């Protein structure tokens, strides 16, 4: 799976979790830019992405995430390790 495919999977997951089918994100998007991205939806989002890609992130990995692009990179790295 390439990074664009990973991004699209994450985007679809975000649209479901944030209940916004028109949501547009980029690699540079951050939580602050999305109204519905709060403490509740953040946890839902991470757990759903873990399920989608069949992986688990460590706390250290999660703490480094600042942008959607970081998440794409992290998923990509873990997929290539598998």
């Amino acid at each position, binding site marked *: 799976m390439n990074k664009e495919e990973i991004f699209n999977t994450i985007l679809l997951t975000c649209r479901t979790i944030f209940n916004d089918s028109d949501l547009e994100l980029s690699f540079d998007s951050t939580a602050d830019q999305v*109204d*519905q*991205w709060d403490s*509740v939806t*953040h*946890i839902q989002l991470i757990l759903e992405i873990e399920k989608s890609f069949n992986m688990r992130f460590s*706390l250290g990995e999660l703490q480094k995430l600042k942008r959607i692009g970081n998440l794409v990179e992290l998923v990509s790295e873990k997929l290539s390790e598998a």
Partner: protein
Amino acid sequence: MKLEKKIKLFLENVPFFYNLEGTPIDSGQFIYEYNKIKLHLYDNHLGSIVAIQLPKDYQYIICIIACMDLGITYVPLGEDYPEARVQQIKKISEFGFKINVGMYQNIVTRETKSIAYFKRTVNREPVLYILFTSGSTGSPKGVEISRSAYENFLIWLGKEFRVTKEDTVLNATEFTFDVSLVDVGFLLNSQPTMVMSNFKNDLFCLLGEIEKYKISVIAAVPNNFSLIFKDEIMARVDLKSLKYALVAGSRFSENLYHNFIKYVPHTQVYNCYGPTEFTIYCLFKKLGDNNDVEKGVVSIGQPLLNTHALIIDANSNIVDNNVIGELVVSGPQLMSSYKGDIKRSLEVLININNLKYYKTGDLVYKTSEDYFYMVGRVDDTVKVSGFRINLSDVDSYIQNIDKVLDCVTLFIESKDNEGVLVTYLILDGSISTSEIKSSLKLVMPAFQIPKYFNKIDKFPLNSSGKICRKTLKNNFLSG
């Protein structure tokens, strides 16, 4: 011990701080910045009221303790407060000076006199701080808390918790929320290491901080814990260091109670209760006995040191055990008044048996063992993440937006979450949710802005012709 003596002791034993970036701040740097701020306040602002609007970091604590030290009344402001809100608060509190980031940097980098300059004794103002809380008509209320009120709280804190220099406290709350003064209290009482949490909305970050810094003490809101207590999250974290969890600010659910036992059985958990008007907490329950839960409600325990709590009916008569009524509290931690608002102060302060009591607006009952259980509110005030929000107040802001004909805001809770604000709107024309939120961000703090806005043609009415909130809630929950 007087507050000024505690501060002197603290300054002689300043612990390590970890700032928002995780950088250690040693006592030398802390004292250097502290003395600069204190000198500036001493030279220019004795006898006046000072507002603090800084990021939630150690510099905020420096300013708070410097104000406490000099007896300057301070007003905490959120960094994200819109200017309109700051001006409202300025008008009510009459603060004459505001420390913001630019001002702070300016003060700590300029040349000043040496610390030996402090010679005069200062006349300390009796009001320690003025904390603003939601009003009901678009105007916030400024709660005046005295030095002696906080001193009583500090005595209780010192007696109840065995926190020492070896402990590490995580500051997880904003300084506009009085629970942050629990952390300041631990600093003044016993100088533990202090970590300034950077978690915002990311609870994985909070968990990471607890693990990384081996946090032993945390004062937080229920949602900080209820959201993380899941097998798939707890399996990746080690919370063995956590000695005390002080939980307050909104409903402590039975589900959360059982999850604390399941996931952190070694942690001593406290369910604490207190309105801003009574200096942080006024009742508390040290969880771990047969009185913890009754009929699905987690006890708020018993009054803390020197506090009296009664339950009254609509005629201000004291009710019997197991009868629901309004909780009223009295004691040294009671606020002085709402700043500049005698009318509102008189509405909530009543005399019973020659003692002044504060009417909390919370519906409670008490068992024969003298444990209190909270079951609801007498008005439409709710608590979200520790912040008290009056729903009528929220509506009054929304109704001022162009194209909004009418609105009603509801607080909707689910089993696991503390609840969200949902507004139903009748519009005259077209306006998007983001446009509404943008308008509100100009006049009210973020925590007061509803999460969801639903447009509706007309409100459902009940048999007496009032808006049927129950129908709206059911509609929302059924999706």
